[in-house]
């Protein structure tokens, strides 16, 4: 290195490590939101860098909609085990049973329903801080997000009244019942994430790579055909999310660019078989990552509204 200068990835890395250590030192019961997606994979590597040779002093938390890609769940569980971490999973279905949430009539996506589940888990485990992998380049409401994002006792974000965040001096003070969301990757872009995955040789779930999959066309997107429903006792969780007669079905060579659940993730046609291929694809991309996310297309302020209500 010689000239005492950090390149952009090393700068973003040291910034994120600093943030993670602040969290571990300042909060009583912090947790890492770990979905198995590419951003949270980077968070885990950064946590290793921040805390090794000690154990990572935070449990992992994941909120499932019940519509997850099985590849993602498998990867998530395996990675948590490798790292010797405690993984806590709470699901929308549990929340239905406990009466914490009620299904929205006519609404197939359970994206919104993750909010009460997340808030319920925060309450259950008394988490005072949740670390998320959200980035400011993803979406324009997120572009206004702080590293340390304060949430009131109802889990709400008040974008017009955020704490000023100056230098690297993060104000982590909370009153009882209040909560912090912390985003170590705030300044990372989609490209930075993939370059970091390459540099660190991180494993990612197989659905990021090109594979054959049966998809159907809905609302200008190719959505994966959900797995068959084989239980007579339970209602089909994918009711309404299965292709109808007149929706075009097709076997495709495709992959995901960003992962929500099966209902909200558009597949992109792609031959990318390696991290290098993915980086080349991101570099040439002419639509944003979240252009393939059905949950963001609801309205101009879809993300802002969900964040105000307590979304990740």
């Amino acid at each position, binding site marked *: 290195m010689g000239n005492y*200068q950090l390149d952009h990835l090393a700068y973003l890395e040291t910034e994120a490590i600093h943030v993670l250590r602040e969290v571990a030192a300042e909060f009583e019961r912090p947790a890492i939101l770990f979905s198995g997606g590419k951003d949270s994979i980077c968070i885990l590597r950064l946590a290793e860098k921040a805390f090794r040779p000690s154990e990572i002093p935070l449990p992992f938390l994941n909120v499932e909609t019940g519509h997850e890609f099985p590849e993602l769940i498998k990867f998530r569980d395996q990675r948590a085990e490798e790292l010797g971490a405690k993984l806590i999973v709470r699901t929308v279905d549990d929340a239905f049973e406990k009466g914490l949430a009620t299904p929205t009539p006519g609404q197939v996506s359970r994206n919104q329903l993750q909010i009460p589940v997340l808030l319920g888990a925060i309450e259950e485990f008394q988490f005072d801080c949740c670390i998320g992998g959200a980035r400011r380049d993803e979406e*324009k409401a997120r572009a*206004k997000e702080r590293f340390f994002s304060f949430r009131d006792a109802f889990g709400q974000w008040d974008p017009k009244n955020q704490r000023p965040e100056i230098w690297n001096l993060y104000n982590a003070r909370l009153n009882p019942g209040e909560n912090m969301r912390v985003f170590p990757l705030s300044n990372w872009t989609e490209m930075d994430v993939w370059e970091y995955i390459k540099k660190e040789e991180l494993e990612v779930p197989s659905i990021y790579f090109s594979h054959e999959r049966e998809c159907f066309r809905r609302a200008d997107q190719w959505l994966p055909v959900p797995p068959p429903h084989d239980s007579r006792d339970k209602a089909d969780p994918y009711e309404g999310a299965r292709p109808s007669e007149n929706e075009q079905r097709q076997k495709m060579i495709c992959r995901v660019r960003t992962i929500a659940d099966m209902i909200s993730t558009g597949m992109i046609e792609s031959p990318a078989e390696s991290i290098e291929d993915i980086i080349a694809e991101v570099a040439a991309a002419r639509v944003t990552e979240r252009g393939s996310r059905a949950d963001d297309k609801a309205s101009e302020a879809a993300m802002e509204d969900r964040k105000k209500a307590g979304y990740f």
Partner: protein
Amino acid sequence: MSKTQHPVELLRFNTCGSVDDGKSTLIGRLLYDSKSIMEDQMEALERSADITGGGQVNLANLTDGLRAEREQGITIDVAYRFVATPRRKFIVADTPGHVEYTRNMVTGASTANLSIVLVDARNGVIEQTRRHSYVSALLGIPHIIFAVNKMDLVDWSEARFREIREGIESFLPKLDLFKDVKFVPISALEGDNVVTFSDKTPWYEGPTLLGHLESVHIASDWNLNGFRFPVQWVNRPNNPTDKSLHDFRGLSGQIAGGIVKVGQEILALPSGQKSYVKEIWTYDGSIEEAFCPQSVTIRLEDDLDISRGDCLVALEPLPGHDSDLSARICWMNARPLTSGKKYHLKHGAQLIQAMVSKIESKIDIETYEPELTPQELNMNDIGEIRLRTSKPIAYDGYTTNRLTGSFVLVEQGTNATVAAGMLHSPAQHYKPEYMDFSI
């Protein structure tokens, strides 16, 4: 990292100007012309243009992300944007220009290497221009660009550009020195001199705005003189990943100044004990030396009693070490500052109690003249204060080191961040010979 790729530098800049100076339009233009804006974002812009904008695509809508901002056509909060060119990556803080949002400008400017101050060519130098220049200087931003915008509306007049430039140059000497100052005539709306040269300014030699952003020398913006290491977290594994590390005791943190080497003698403050660096541990293996702003874990030869908030420092140059401090602050809360009030003070990795003992002056940031002994400081005021902390802190002057010379005040009870503070250089440095506990 692969050897074939050259390292890409990161430059952080902020943009400031008053309402309608075209800040958001300029960022929109940079994003658009550097192809950092995507088709779906463009579609969304076009959609909202059809609905609300009478068909005119408004580049400002790219950065004005909140509903209230789009409704009122203003920028409320700092928005961060990302631009990449083959030469550099940029993190852009779009900071609002209204008087009442100065606190957001301080936020966006605090981490910037460079400031772009927008000046409307029709209005010339106005109060806001002086205010933004002052805040950029106050926050120690090394590089500044005055982008004289809307040149198309003054017929690309060289005389007008010169007049504005001279107006700014007449007050710059009153501010702290910037490493470099540039003036660029642009039209953010049309794109002239933003990414590509304009044929309308044959009298302007360059560079373009982006050209300057890509080439300005930023390698020396971090402080590499005088090792400072605020301890964030004591790393003591109960169950180490590597069994040979069962007696591992490391001090984890981010280097806030200078360079540290294995074998170097260091001083721990506030205890005043000395030791030597035994190992600089990282996840990727031990290293021989580390520098600001790397995050590392330092092991010392001696098992000193050190906890979060303490600071390891080089013996030369030594920092100040005092509980009686003087600082310049920007007040950021609707409840004014009155002297005698207690706050939490965050400096480095520590949060301690502090009392504002005196408000010495309030600075008129348009005339740069101080008003002596004001009763209080109000939201967005900048003033000189004296503070007493519950224990001495190790610090440098802000002009020497932006990381060890800065603090924030947090209101007790509400936990609101109420002030950003920049410490004056210490009158005297720590004197280890008077309390030498070295083993």
